[in-house]
């Protein structure tokens, strides 16, 4: 190691390390409190702070059993159907925008046409339309169709009580960012490679399937993780398009309801919250590397 670097290492460390440790501990404690509370017996949670657990450890999984299968908030029905809904919403709502955005990004990057640059900027700009603006018109479209005077342009779909409106809304709202990020990646593919394929007589569809998709797997993977977390964690879209029933509503909607009405039952609320965290946390820690790389693709040059 060169002497300059060695000296720098020796000097910069102790205070920085200490500060870093303090902040990291501070950042982790709230989540730890949630986890510890969720495995304590009801009586303990109600009478003493969760940190007492370390002095008098007494653990149980009863809270999880209650929230999953019985409800236990003075309401019938557990969280299990909502957990299933979260999964049933998140997976398609990740696949749909991913595929459509990859296609659009390829067309914008490699099938250049007049106005394709302008179109790219318009799509980028749409990224910042607050979802709140789109909710009411979309809801009206889904429930009543579209009419111009007395002429029906789009008939009303009877989609209420199904996942379809939620999938559609998530797909629509994800497209601007997805197209932007994937375009950055796809546009950087080697020009020689693409031209060679055209010379060989491959159609755009063939190029897309057999060259672009395989080469873009890292970017696709990172966006898939990002979108999955986003959909799983979403409250606003689900609240608007899924209602609050166990047929369609995801975990976030149910948890938000329960916090409002049964805020005092911490042993159940924390167990419920931890159940909603467990899937995204597994995804996050298992695939963290790809996730971070994907985030960086759009923001750090070089």
């Amino acid at each position, binding site marked *: 190691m060169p002497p300059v670097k060695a000296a720098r290492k020796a000097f*910069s*460390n102790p205070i920085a390390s200490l500060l870093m440790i303090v902040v990291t501990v501070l*950042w*982790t404690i*709230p*989540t730890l*409190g*949630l986890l510890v509370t969720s495995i304590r017996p009801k009586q303990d949670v109600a009478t003493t*702070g*969760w*940190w007492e657990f370390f002095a008098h450890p007494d653990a149980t999984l009863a809270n999880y*059993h209650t929230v999953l299968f019985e409800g236990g908030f003075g309401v019938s029905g*557990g969280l299990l*159907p909502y957990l299933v809904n979260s999964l*049933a919403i998140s*997976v*398609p709502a990740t*696949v*749909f925008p991913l*595929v*459509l*955005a990859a296609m*659009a990004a390829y067309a*914008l990057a490699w099938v250049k*046409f007049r106005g394709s640059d302008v179109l790219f*900027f318009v799509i*980028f700009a*749409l990224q*910042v*339309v*607050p979802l*709140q*603006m*789109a909710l*009411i*018109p979309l809801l009206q*479209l889904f429930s009543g169709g579209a009419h111009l005077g007395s002429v029906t342009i789009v008939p009303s779909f009877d989609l209420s009580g199904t*996942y379809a409106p939620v*999938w*559609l809304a998530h*797909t629509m709202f994800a*497209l601007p960012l997805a*197209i932007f990020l994937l375009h950055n990646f796809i546009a950087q593919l080697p020009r020689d490679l693409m031209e060679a394929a055209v010379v060989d007589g491959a159609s755009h*569809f063939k190029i897309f399937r057999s060259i672009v998709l395989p080469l873009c797997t890292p970017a696709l993977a990172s966006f898939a993780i990002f979108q999955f977390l986003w959909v799983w*964690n*979403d*409250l606003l879209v689900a609240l608007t398009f899924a209602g609050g029933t166990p047929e369609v509503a995801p*975990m976030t909607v149910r*948890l*938000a309801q329960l*916090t409002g009405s049964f805020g005092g039952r911490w042993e159940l*609320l924390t167990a419920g919250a931890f159940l909603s965290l467990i899937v995204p*946390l597994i995804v996050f*820690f298992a695939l*963290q590397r790809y996730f971070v790389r994907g985030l*960086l693709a759009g*923001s*750090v*040059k*070089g």
Partner: protein
Amino acid sequence: MPTVSASAVQLADSAWTDASIKLGNSVGAIAGFLGILLLIFFAAGRAGGRFTRPLAIAVMLGPAALLLVVGLVVPLVRTVYLSFSNDDSTRSVGGANYGWALTTDSIHQVLWNTLLWLVIAPLVATGLGLLLALLVDRMRGQAVYKSLLFMPMAISLVGASIIWKFVYDARDPAQPQIGLLSQIAISLGWHHPPNWILSHPLNNFLLMVVMVWVQTGFAMVVLSAAIKAIPDEITEAARLDGARGFRLFRHVTVPMIRTTLVVVLTTVMITTLKAFDIVRTMTGGNFGTQVLANEMYSQSFVQFNVGRGSALAVILFLAVTPLVAYNIVQLRKEREHR
């Protein structure tokens, strides 16, 4: 006890059937979607001659463009139109909804809170993220620190709100506390700490802490990558010229990562617009903590005044427009350099 567990098992059984049907529907939808795409690709790939290019553009760009128009462009126009209409959008009321938004006291507070959120939460999260990125640079075991600080990013804002609601839980000071913050306050000798969530205007800042907690790790990871991307020669040259510590940071590091700083700030700000989740879960917008995103939701979906709700949505949109404009200008500049 046996009867209880038997009924629980039965309940679980029907739940599993229900789950397999629901997940089956999802998988079916994905299979159908991919199947249709493959068919179209196959058919369009056959077509030759001068239609190849237009067909490729239409097939590849068409679905995304259609969804964007239906999902964002039309709603944008329509929301602006609805904002000039009455509560059930049957007649035009001119600017009355905007007048209401700008002259009603309770809405004043909402606008003010939203502004506070949009300024404070992103600045604190980005600033703290930058500080931590500088600290973590060149530390051993930095992956562990980064993962733990970044972790809240994976947690839903609803989940995060429950976590922090528990931290802020307050009880009669004579009783044993179960909320961490009250316990710390009492341990430090504050005999009667307030009921945190109910204390205005303190509660607004306590809610912002949740957003900062979620976003700081993200800012740190991205900024840390940007700092690492600064070529070593530049830092060395500056050091040889006598730049040290803060001067080095101010005149070398910050200019070199300016683009990334702006991107991070923008991203955090856009997330902050969703303070909706936090406010809704923690206070329901009561006790003087209401923000525009949540008020807009209650106007439209609780009080069924679509006109007012739309006007608030337009105001929210106008608030972020400068940000979009600035980003597009930056993006164009970067493209010209390529």
